[in-house]
């Protein structure tokens, strides 16, 4: 893939887009990288190192649709006032912008589980992070193969 897109280098595009922010000003489908996903994650969850576990990312291995692929994230938690999931963040390493959605839960959510449908520009790794009420961060990730990308580009 060429590094120059309509006279903009990747660095220019990233500078315009800002660290991990949605690439509103990007003139073409510049793709995020794992590093940009990391930068966004740091903004979302803070400095705590994410541990693998507790988070179940339900995603097919091969996408049925690049435009609307079902994703679910379930986190093992009693969801009590003393011990609950405060946020679930989903990040995509290979979409034009890494942020997918962030879900802020409360003990009134009952269950730490959300499901939605996402766009996938290409084969990539999707990651889910759960931030707990005690400040700990848990994560799971999975690669999904995409044959028809869903960003309309």
């Amino acid at each position, binding site marked *: 893939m060429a590094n120059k897109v309509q006279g903009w280098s990747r660095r220019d595009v990233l500078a315009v887009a800002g660290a991990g922010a949605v690439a509103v000003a990007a003139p073409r489908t510049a793709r995020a990288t794992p590093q940009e996903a990391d930068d966004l994650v740091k903004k979302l969850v803070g400095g705590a190192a994410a541990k693998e576990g507790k988070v179940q990312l339900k995603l097919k291995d091969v996408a049925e649709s690049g435009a609307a692929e079902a994703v679910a994230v379930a986190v093992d938690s009693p969801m009590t006032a003393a011990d609950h999931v405060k946020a679930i963040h989903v990040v995509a390493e290979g979409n034009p912008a890494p942020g997918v959605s962030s879900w802020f839960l409360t003990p009134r959510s009952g269950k730490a589980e959300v499901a939605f*449908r996402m766009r996938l520009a290409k084969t990539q790794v999707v990651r889910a992070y759960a931030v707990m009420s005690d400040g700990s961060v848990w994560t799971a990730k999975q690669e999904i193969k995409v044959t028809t990308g869903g960003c309309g580009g």
Partner: protein
Amino acid sequence: MAAPAIKSRIPAKAKKGEIIEIKAQITHDMETGQRKDAAGKTIPRRIINKFVCTWNNDVIVSSDWHTAMSANPFVTCYALATDSGKIKLTFHDDSGEVYEQVTDITVE
């Protein structure tokens, strides 16, 4: 884009302490700002950027959405049944418009 319509599946009744499933869908193009029209002009971004579910005005789930959320977003979340009352689903559009749907629920 046609005026967004909200459909939801929320139980009409629940037992106190039960966890109910809330499914919601809004018709919305979720325009990413990446596409160009036939003339080659970029179609501006316009998405639902926030979704909130409240139960008698207490926030159950609040969510920030980005351009990777699909068109006509279809979502599932959960809520702990506490009291009878109203469950409100709110969708915030980049345009500033807000779309809402209120459903009654009886908790026994």
